[in-house]
């Protein structure tokens, strides 16, 4: 099932020039001198076998900053994912964060006979189209909001905002009652079997309902469904679009009118939406369409955006916290009232840093882009959340 040689070759890591640009721009390397992406590759390739002692392979955030700068666009994050899978296969132990809660959840969700009851949060006035082959993929927001209730993240706010926007834009869709976690975090951790179990369960669910198109506002779900599923399963035949890809043309053409929100915001490009999927303009076009909204860029934005320090629910530690501190400081420096992001994981991780009790961490308010845009539709702040 797992062809390490081919995965190494596919990542193009053998083309590495050893120029070290990746090390310079890597946020983890900035805070942890022991972490050196270039040397991880070298160690693995010169040994030609896995090195279970190399602890550093767990620290990579998959933020793709190295890929952005690399002369050959070496797919270093994918290489890391392969190394992790190899390490686990050889008996390495995964250090799950939150006591393994998320891993347990993801494994439970892969059960074939699962009949979830996960739509109770859905507001009454959201219109779902019957017999529609387009679905809105919600993702793990309902579960996140329970598990991280003490962080007061409320990622469902973003989902509800997205649904209202789609309704307002008259984009037809339905929601599957039994969609599963996309599995990206398991893939990143090296748990191939776990990922494939979720992927297959999802594909069966999609097939059962004749799904042809998926809209989602979760960047991780978007990328996984669009790229990783075909790559690991061999083609899905399903079109996957991000919410902003659907809405941006509509706000630009005037078909969707966003109202007014007088406030100053700054935007955090999620790594998976930005560098990975190259979606930089659409979120900005949506914000630009909200009257009165002043958007100030952080010092590191778009292709150079600093990662939020999110982990795949494993090996989360001091370095992640330092990166979150840095990012929140950059947000604060813009003078913005609100830090807007478009990813539930960014939201959770940045909130976690803010709630940590460390006085140095900037407490700027964080909101989801879809929630913010929906708010501007003059529906009143409360009815959305």
């Amino acid at each position, binding site marked *: 099932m797992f062809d390490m040689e081919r995965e190494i070759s596919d990542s193009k890591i053998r083309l590495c020039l050893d120029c070290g640009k990746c090390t310079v721009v890597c946020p983890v390397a900035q805070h942890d001198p022991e972490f050196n992406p270039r040397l991880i590759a070298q160690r693995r390739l010169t040994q030609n076998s896995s090195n279970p002692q190399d602890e550093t392979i767990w620290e990579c955030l998959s933020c793709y900053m190295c890929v952005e700068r690399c002369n050959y666009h070496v797919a270093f994050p994918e290489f890391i994912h392969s190394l992790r899978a190899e390490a686990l296969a050889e008996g390495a132990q995964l250090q*799950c964060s*939150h*006591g*393994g*809660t998320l891993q347990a959840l993801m494994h439970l969700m892969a*059960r074939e006979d699962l009949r*979830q*009851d*996960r739509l109770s949060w859905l507001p009454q006035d959201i219109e779902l189209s019957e017999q529609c082959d387009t679905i809105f993929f919600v993702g793990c927001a309902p579960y996140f909001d329970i*598990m991280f209730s003490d962080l007061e993240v409320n990622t469902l706010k973003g989902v509800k905002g997205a649904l209202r926007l789609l309704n307002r834009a008259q984009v037809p869709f339905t929601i599957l009652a039994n969609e599963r976690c996309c599995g990206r975090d398991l893939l990143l951790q090296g748990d191939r079997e776990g990922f494939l179990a979720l992927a297959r369960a999802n594909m069966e669910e999609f097939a059962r309902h004749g799904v042809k198109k998926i809209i989602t506002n979760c960047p991780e779900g978007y990328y996984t469904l669009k790229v990783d599923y075909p790559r690991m399963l061999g083609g899905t035949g399903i079109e996957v679009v991000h919410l902003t890809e659907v809405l941006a043309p509509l706000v630009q053409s005037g078909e969707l009118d966003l109202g007014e929100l007088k406030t100053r915001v700054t935007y955090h490009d999620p790594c998976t939406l930005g560098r990975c999927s190259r979606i930089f303009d659409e979120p900005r076009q949506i914000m630009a369409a909200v009257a009165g909204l002043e958007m100030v860029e952080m010092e590191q934005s778009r292709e150079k955006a600093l990662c939020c320090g999110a982990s795949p629910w494993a090996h989360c530690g001091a370095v992640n916290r330092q990166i979150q501190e840095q990012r929140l400081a950059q947000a604060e420096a813009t003078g913005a009232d609100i830090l807007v992001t478009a990813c539930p994981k960014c939201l959770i991780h940045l909130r976690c840093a803010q709630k940590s009790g460390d006085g140095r961490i900037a407490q700027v308010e964080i909101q989801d882009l879809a929630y913010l845009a929906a708010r501007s539709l003059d529906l009143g702040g409360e009815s959305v959340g």
Partner: protein
Amino acid sequence: MNKSAVRLVVFACNWDGLSCIEAAAQAGLVYPASVRVVRVSCLSRVHQGLMLKAFELGADGVMLLGCEPGNCQFDIDAGLIEQEYEKARRVLRLLGLGEERLVLCHIPRGDGSGFVGRVTGFIKKVERMQPAVPAGA
């Protein structure tokens, strides 16, 4: 009750919780061998992750067995345990497995028969529910 197919995990705190189990054993009270006991120092050690993990590994039901409020050996606020318990229950509900599969029991110290009564009652309830784990898993 002698036997059951229902697999239960009981997280028992080392003090009040365990005392009930030991009392039941000393009194010769019988409950199915499919009930596995995991001893912890304090129930506050059992966060939502461990509860869900038990289900992941094949439990049909999980019982948290601890002290009555105010009796905690370590003076831990019972609210903390409540919080984790509530979170895990809500996740189970969302998963469609049923929040009733997770129970939190406060039993007086050394109450062996009380424990056995609660366990057998729990097992019967779980038996009436759809299997949490598919047959043959």
